[in-house]
């Protein structure tokens, strides 16, 4: 384990509260193979994060030239990753400096092709399809005998996940009530005859072909698995007031995530902290410094919590969890015909950023970048960029060489070809590959593509 500090006191407190690791009858016992303990946390800051206030900033000279708004009004820092790669980062990211070794930043990520809507790009972020589909979190949970495919904390409006049936979508504040309520199920005293009758009716109703029958089958399956579920809840029936510590806004959710991961209840979580950065108007855009300070505080809260929370006497929760932090897209530099001193920002699916951290991630890197880094670059723009963004209001990820694993900064493709760039599909497939999920589940760069998008070399340990 790295030289991060985990206090004995913290470990003892959590060790007592986590309870005994349950044996799952008939399946691999949780904890018997430490190498198997591998969780996935997808953190989504919805509504479109402006990466120029994060790890893809621009010099003030560009603001002075009217190319990009900068309501912070400060020159960006040079963020040098431990690997030596550099990017310009907003000074707002300074609270994350101590985590530079623990995360990898991926800039210039392309999102849904030809769609700029929140729902379309959230669907793409989760399923690889702008119209919705399967999220891969359930595949991860289903590799073990987790009871729940995934837990969702926070709202994701306009999304359509087709495999969300065995998930739980709730407010962390209700976690204590849920656990204590579920615990009372162990004392239910229904007569065997009545229980058999109820199950029998569900089974018979489930023999048809339609949606109602399918629902009945799911009811039957759900009711039949109650005893195992109650045992999971008994392992997390230990909430107290300190679990709702408001010193960090993400703490209640992270505490729930910790308990649900440790109990084996699920292996996948979507956490969507509530922020609204959809700053189309100048007034809201001008509050960017406050908005992004808050987001960065949440990112810090998530990663610090994972890093400082022991999983066992040798590993932290971060050591056993792969983390992906993203928004559904980035934002434009400015709006057409607006002064940068008084402009909002629109959606930009061509220049998103993603932060990866945790288990198996090769951390301390910066992968990919966007174009239009300097004023000079506005005079030599690729045909591909003007094809997508004629007025040069957006930054766009530059082409990427998947063989050599590096950005092709000077490449100037004449036309836009999706395979030239890093898309979120590449990141998703890298995650899937990391979890040993079969290639037939992998995403395509476009829905109509024949082949899966290639994994990003060097993002994960092989």
């Amino acid at each position, binding site marked *: 384990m790295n030289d991060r500090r985990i206090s004995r006191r913290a470990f003892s407190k959590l060790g007592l509260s986590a309870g005994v690791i349950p044996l799952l009858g008939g399946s691999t016992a949780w904890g018997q193979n430490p190498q198997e303990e591998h969780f996935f946390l997808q953190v989504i800051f919805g509504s479109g994060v402006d990466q120029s206030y994060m790890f893809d900033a621009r010099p003030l000279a560009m603001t002075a030239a009217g190319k990009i708004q900068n309501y912070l009004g400060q020159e960006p820092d040079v963020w040098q990753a431990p690997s030596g790669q550099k990017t310009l980062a907003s000074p707002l990211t300074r609270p994350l400096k101590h985590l530079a070794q623990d995360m990898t930043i991926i800039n210039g990520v392309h999102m849904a092709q030809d769609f700029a809507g929140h729902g379309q790009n959230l669907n793409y972020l989760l399923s690889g399809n702008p119209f919705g589909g399967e999220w891969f979190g359930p595949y991860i949970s289903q590799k073990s005998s987790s*009871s*729940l495919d995934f837990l969702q904390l926070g*709202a994701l*409006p*306009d*999304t359509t996940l087709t495999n*969300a*049936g*065995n*998930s*739980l*979508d*709730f*407010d962390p*504040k*209700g976690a*204590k*009530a*849920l656990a*204590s*309520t*579920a615990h*009372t*199920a162990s004392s*239910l005293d*229904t*007569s065997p*005859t*009545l229980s058999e*009758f*109820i199950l029998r*009716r*569900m089974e*018979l*109703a*489930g023999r048809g072909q*339609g*949606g*109602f*029958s*399918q*629902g*009945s089958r*799911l*009811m039957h*399956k*759900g*009711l039949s*698995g*109650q005893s*195992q*579920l*109650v045992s999971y809840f008994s392992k997390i029936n230990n909430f107290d007031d300190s679990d709702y510590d408001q010193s960090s806004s993400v703490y209640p959710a992270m505490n729930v995530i910790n308990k649900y991961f440790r109990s084996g209840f699920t292996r996948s979580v979507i956490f969507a902290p509530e922020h609204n950065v959809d700053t189309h108007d100048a007034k809201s855009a001008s509050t960017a410094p406050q908005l992004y300070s808050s987001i960065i505080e949440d990112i810090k809260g998530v990663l610090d919590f994972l890093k400082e929370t022991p999983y066992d006497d040798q590993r932290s929760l971060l050591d056993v969890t792969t983390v992906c932090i993203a928004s559904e897209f980035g934002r434009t530099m400015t709006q057409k015909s607006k002064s940068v001193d008084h402009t909002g920002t629109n959606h930009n699916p061509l220049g998103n950023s993603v932060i990866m951290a945790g288990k198996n991630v090769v951390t301390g890197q910066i992968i990919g970048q966007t174009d239009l880094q300097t004023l000079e670059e506005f005079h030599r723009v690729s045909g591909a960029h003007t094809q997508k963004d004629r007025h040069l209001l957006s930054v766009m990820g530059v082409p990427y060489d998947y063989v050599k694993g590096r950005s092709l900064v000077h490449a100037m493709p004449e036309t836009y070809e999706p395979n030239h760039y890093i898309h979120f599909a590449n990141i998703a497939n890298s995650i899937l590959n990391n979890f040993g999920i079969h290639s037939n589940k992998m995403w395509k760069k476009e829905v109509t593509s024949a082949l899966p998008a290639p994994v990003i070399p060097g993002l994960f340990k092989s």
Partner: protein
Amino acid sequence: MKISKKLVSNVFVVSLLLGLSSCNNQAPLSSTTKAPHGNAIGGYKGYNAINADLNQRVFKNVDIIIFLQPSAPLQEIGPLSSLLGSFSGQGSGNKFTNGTPNATNMLLWNLLMTNLAKHIGEQCDHVRNKTTAYIGGQAIELQPIFKNILSFLCPMGKETNAPILDLSQTFWLQVMGYQASYDEYQAWLQYVSDNKEGLSGKDRVEAMMLSLLMNPYYLLEQ
């Protein structure tokens, strides 16, 4: 004095009619509030729909979430209703969540309905004694027609078949309405008939209620 079957039936019908006529605000029993979420998989109608339905057919102004954990404060368990199938979000982002049956929400529905059915059984004592039941300081009042049904059903001990089965039909129609198939009703009636011996009135009412409320025809959208 022997009480003839005919007298009992006549008294019952008159009482039922009197009960019906006193319920000016009774909604039609042939349908229930349907959650218009158009679930492709037969998902739950949702908490609000079931709550509204039970408040037409059984209760008067009761938020049935209290039955999830009767000993807990309402403000603590109230938010758990979102886990039983509910709409969340605003405007175009409004969507129906937690509506597909899985182990977790089935656990919660089972808990809620089991405690609710148990309470209905306990209402037998209150109907007989003309007292009011309370949960956490809240009075739990029943719709007059449902209370009327219980007033006849609860005292039924080892009586003849006919009154219990007649009453069972009325009970079924009052709670389930016409949501389920006739075969489903027949199966339930058979269960009630086969298992009425040796049960007290309140235990029988509890079993009738739970077996009905946990039926897919009651909980799922069709």
